[in-house]
Every structure is written in structure tokens, then in C-alpha cells.
């Protein structure tokens, strides 16, 4: 009996030890999924801009590392099944980056980013834990992605709705966490305007980077 209890405690400790690394990697995948889609939309907007493609490839490498981390750190068959699917999506993105920059591919990468988020959310639900800072950064990046998608007229109606929803989410989350962050957010909030006349991707991008840095400092 004692041996059984000892074994159970050992396995439980292993499980508890594994969780933070897995969760962190899973949250990172969520963030990267949005970042890759966002960077691709910037690339689609300015195809001759040399910095976005290396950034996308770097994000893809980080995504691979995160997937490996989760795979090593978890023994759950369900999670491994999800990882298979996520890995497949990652390969699809890699193929897409080798292809020409096009509206069709921009639409595809938006879909892939949603697929990755759904998969990771399932993992996080099974682990029953989320990291607030990562979630906030993920939402900020999602906001940037949706802003670009709306202005580049990619599924405009759905993405406009999602943009407003995400603005609300960021509003709620920043309100909860820190006053300075909330003030900064309020300074920048008006920039996420879906009106075509006020398309300011560079300034919006500066704002998102600034907010992300503020979140990192929390």
C-alpha cells in the first residue's frame, strides 16, 4: 500500500512539475500563431519589406521548439493527438511561406492561426491552467492581426466583429491588472479604428509593441 501511495505521489509530482513548462510553451504557441498571421499580413501589405519574412521564419522555428517542449513534457495521449494536428498545421504554414505572397495565402494563414489557437486552447483546458501575461500578449497580437485583416479586406465582417470583441477583452484584462497599462491602452485604443480612411498600420504596430513591453514588465 505504501509503495502504491509513494508511486502515486511520485507521478503526481512529475505531472505538477511538467505543467508550467507545457503551459508556457502552449501559451507561446497561441501568441506565435497570431504573430505569424500578423507578420504575413504586413508582408502582404508591403511585399518588398525585407524584415517580415525572416521574422516569420524565426517565429516558425520557435513554434517547432514549443511543440517539442510540450511533446517531451506531457504523457497525455490526448495532448499528443492534438500536437500531431498542430505539427501538421505548422508544416502547412512552412509550405505557405515558400509560396508566393497572395491574398489566398493571407486568408489561409488566418485560418491556420485560428486552428493553432483552438488546438492549444484544448491543451490548456485539459491542464486547467492559463498564464495571464501570455493571454494578454496573445490578445494584443490578435488585435493587430485583426486590424490588418479588416483593413486588407479579408473576411471583413467577421474580422471587424472579432476586432471589437478583442478590444473589449483587452479592455477588461488591462483594467484588472495594472493602472499604467490601462492608461497606455486607453491612449492607444483609438488607433485600432476599422474605418478605411484611418489605416495606420505602422503606428498601430508601434502601439502594440509598446503595450507588449509594458505587459512584459508586469
Amino acid at each position: 500500500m505504501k509503495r502504491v501511495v509513494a508511486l502515486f505521489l511520485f507521478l503526481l509530482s512529475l505531472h505538477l512539475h511538467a505543467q508550467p513548462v507545457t503551459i508556457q510553451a502552449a501559451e507561446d504557441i497561441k501568441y506565435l500563431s497570431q504573430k505569424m498571421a500578423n507578420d504575413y499580413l504586413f508582408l502582404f501589405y508591403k511585399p518588398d519589406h525585407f524584415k517580415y519574412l525572416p521574422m516569420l521564419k524565426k517565429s516558425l522555428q520557435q513554434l517547432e521548439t514549443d511543440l517539442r517542449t510540450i511533446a517531451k513534457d506531457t504523457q497525455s495521449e490526448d495532448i499528443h493527438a492534438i500536437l500531431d494536428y498542430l505539427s501538421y498545421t505548422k508544416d502547412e504554414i512552412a509550405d505557405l511561406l515558400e509560396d508566393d505572397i497572395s491574398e489566398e495565402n493571407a486568408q489561409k494563414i488566418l485560418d491556420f492561426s485560428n486552428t493553432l489557437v483552438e488546438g492549444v486552447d484544448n491543451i490548456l483546458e485539459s491542464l486547467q491552467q492559463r498564464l495571464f501575461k501570455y493571454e494578454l500578449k496573445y490578445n494584443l497580437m490578435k488585435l493587430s492581426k485583426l486590424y490588418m485583416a479588416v483593413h486588407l479586406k479579408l473576411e471583413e465582417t467577421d474580422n471587424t466583429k472579432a476586432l471589437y470583441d478583442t478590444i473589449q477583452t483587452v479592455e477588461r484584462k488591462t483594467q484588472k491588472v495594472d493602472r499604467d497599462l490601462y492608461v497606455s491602452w486607453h491612449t492607444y485604443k483609438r488607433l485600432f479604428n476599422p474605418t478605411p480612411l484611418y489605416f495606420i498600420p505602422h503606428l498601430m504596430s508601434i502601439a502594440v509593441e509598446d503595450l507588449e513591453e509594458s505587459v512584459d514588465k508586469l
Partner: protein
Amino acid sequence: MKRINQLLISIAILLSLFFVYRSYQAYKNYQIIQQSDLYVHLLGNLQKSIHALESERLSTALYLGYKGNTNFGQLANIREKSDQALQELFSYLSSNEKLADIKASFSHIHEDLRYVRSRVDVINDDYKTILIDYYHTKIVAPLLKDLHHWVNKLSLSVETIAPYFHTYKALTNFIDTQNQEQSFIAYKLAAYQEMTMPDLVIWETILNQEEIPDITPLSQKPIYHLLDKTVQTKLLEERLTTLRRNVLRGSNNGNYTLQAASWIAQIQQNIDAVQEAQQTLFDYIKSLDFKSIVPVKLYINIGFFLLLLGILFWLIKRQQNLRPIHKRILDEDNPDIKIKHDTDIETLGTQNTLVANNETAILIDSEELLELADGDLPLTNITVSPTKPKTVVKKEEKIKEDQEVIQKVQIKETNFSPIELFKEVIKPFIYIAQQRNIAFHYAIDPSLPQVCIGDREKIKEIATLILNYAIQSTSSRKTVTMKIENVAQKKFETALSFRIKDPSSYIPKEEQRHIRKGEKPAHILPSGHEDLFKAGKLVKQVGGSLRMESDRSNGTEFAVSINLKRFIPTDQ
């Protein structure tokens, strides 16, 4: 074959035109290179004027932002400097006629500058019109556009120097966007004015034009290390990111944490660094000896053009050689007959009768004959075309001069019509061929002279003997062809040739030699060969030649060539 040749000629012409165009372009570029001093100095003058005007714009932005609460004297000094720079530019443009057009395109600048300055003097609030619409769009941008235009021209002229100009252009662009941003934001910071969404759109427009200068195209050049030290792209980007964030944070309400002076100073660090690199590169460009540059592009294009020209001439010559020999001779000697040849193609196959008439001539050329023999149309579909009889007068004196050509043997020379003669020969064989169930196709060249001088009877006998041999030796359902051609024609002579193709018989080489010589061999002759020996002898007598080609599968082809004198009427 002809069509392929024609296609090749067309391709060669097109390619030649293409290389003419390329050579012209390369020559124009070479001309620019030859006058590079003129244009490089122009770039220097433009660059100086742009810098001066950008300084004036920045001072103006501060003056307006502070609502005139700064030293106006400072602004006035800067205005003087820009006037001076512009004056230098205009005097340079006036110094050369080639630059007159550029001068004309800048004629509005003085007027615009005077107008915008008067508005600044009264501290007009319309900063967008003053800073963007006038100072940038109407004053600086045309100068910058022209600078880019000449940079592009010079970079296109010679590939080896292109990276210098591309980099110079990139540096100039970056300085321009930095200056635009600097003056616009300086105004907002000086005025502590919030940025509305349209203001943010103006800022965004400037950022959208910005490109961090890339100096890597010069990485293989010695100047690269000098530029790399000055232009540190990462540092430029980091500085800009921090500054822009600071400004953007206060843009909502005008509570900027950054002073205008601080903003100007920090952005100026970027501008100075890039300007230093720009000047270094410009000095280097000035030091290049453009005139010693070999216009490789021009030479290559001219080389290709000349090569194609050579090919073109060769193809044209080849095309001429592909035309049938007798046609070429006819074209040269007898234009009337050429017309007949052209028209006979149109009417070919429209008549199916053989008319033995003094007023007709049967028209067909050797190539068409072969085509017909291979194709569906029977050779007997021969066009009959009327020919006009000519009144002829003897030119006896001339003929007498040629008496030496008359055969040494007993030759009875008479005037006769070769066409009539051959019709006479052929007529009975049409009937014989029908009886023997043999297809007999013949063609008489209409270009044969109307009247010739020669031994009519001997020629008739030769043709009759050979044709008789061919018809007799040919088995039923086979085809015997006879072509009578005027293969060459001079003013007083004509070369008559008739060829008879017998598909069945075979004559060995040795036998052919005897026939040609007209000598009877010692052995017993095969049936009909007696006639051939006789024909061979007669051919020799009339000074002609008899050739034979014979093989077991295709039979034998007899080709007789006889030179005849042409009958020339005295009125000619």
C-alpha cells in the same frame, strides 16, 4: 524548306530590330556617361538645395509650433541660406543648355516659397498646408524627384556603377522621410497639440515612405566599410522606435513627455549619420572616372546586331538559291515569261485538255510537275495559256557570225518552233500510251522561244526514238513523263532540255556509256537499245548531250540538252 527559311528571316529581322533598340538605349546611356560631370554636379546642387530647404522647413515648423515665440532672425538666416542654395542651383542650370528644361520645371519654386513664407510670417495655423502641401509637395519633392531621375539615369548607364547610385538614392530617401517626420512632429511637440486621426494619417504616410537604407549592395566595394561604420541600421531603428513611442503616447491629449528640442536633436542624430554617409558616397561618386568606363553593353548590343545582320544576309541569299534555277534565269532575262509563270499557278488544274494549236503553249514548271506527280492532281491537268504570236524579222547578219557553231556533220538547220515540234512528237504517243494502258504525262515550258534555228528533223528523231523506247519498255498502269524545258536563255541562244522518265527499264552503266557515245557495243543488243544508240549518235551530231540515270527500282531517266540559236526578228 522555303517557309522555314522565311520564318528564320522574320525572326532575324525582329531580333535585329530588338538589338537596334537596345544599342540605341545603350548609346543614349553612354552619352550620359560621357557627360557625367554635368549630371553629377547637378546632383550636388540639388542635394544642397534640398538640405537647405529641409532646414528651413524645420525652423518654420518650430516657429509656427511656438506661435512665433522664437527668434525670427534665426529663421530669416536659414531662409537666406536656402535662397542662396537655390540661386546656385539656378545659375548652374542656366550655365548649360542641356539643363534648360530642368530649370523651367523648377520655375514655380520661387513663387511657392514666397507665398508660403508670407503665410508663416503671419503665423498661419494651417500647418498641414504649409509643411506638407507647400514645403514638401510643391517645393522639396520636385527637386527630390529630379534628383532621383538623374540618379536612375546614371545608374542605368553602366551596371558596374549602379550599386553606388542605388545606395545613394536609398540614403537620400531616408534623409527625406526623416526630415519630413522631424518637422511635422516638431510642430506638434512645440505646440503641445494633440494628434487627431487625420494627423496620425499624415504621420503614417511619412512612415510608409520610409525605408531603412540598405548598404549591402556595396558590400563588395572598398567604400562599404566606411559607410557601414556611419550607417548602423539597428541603431537607427532602435532610436526611432523609442522616440516614436514617446510621441505616440502623448498624441492622444498633447501631453508629450518629449520636448521638441529633444525630439529634433535625437532625430538629427539619425539624419546626420545618414547625411555623412551620403556625402562620403557622393564624394566617392564624384571621384570616379566615368569617361574611362568601357560601354560593354553598347558593344555587346552592336555585336549582336551585326551578327544578326550577317545571318540575315545569309538567309536572304539562301532564300534566293532555293528558287528553281530556270525561274531565276527567266526572271532575269525574260520579264514577259515571269508574268506567265505567276499566273499559271492560279489557273492550274482548271483545264483538262491538251490543245494542239499554234496559238497555245503548255505551261508548267519542273517544281510544280514534281508536286503534281506526288500529289492528288494528275500531271495531265495542265494549264493552257494563250500566247501572242510575234512578227519576226530575220537578223541574218548576226546569225552568219555564228555559222561556226553549225554542225560539222550534215546538219540541216532550219527555223522551227520547238513547241510545235514537241507537240508533233508527242501526239502519236498519247494514242499509243492509251492503247497500252500507260499514263503519259508531259509538260512543255511556255518560255521556249517561238522560233529557233537548228536541225529540226534530227531533234524530232531523237525525241521520238527515246520516247518510243520509254513507251515500249513501260509496262501497263505505269507512268511515263516527259518535260520539255527552256533551262537557260540568252539573247541569241537558248538551251533546250527534254527529260523522259521511263519507270520500267534499267540500263547498266556500261551500256549507258555506249549510248552516250553513240557507239554500238560488240555484244548483242537488248530490244529497243538499237534506237537508243541511234538517239545517242544523233545527240552527238547536233552538239547536244545525253545523260541517263537508271536504277532497278525507279527505272531510267533520259535528259537531253541541246543548244539552239534563237531567231531574232530584224526590228529587234
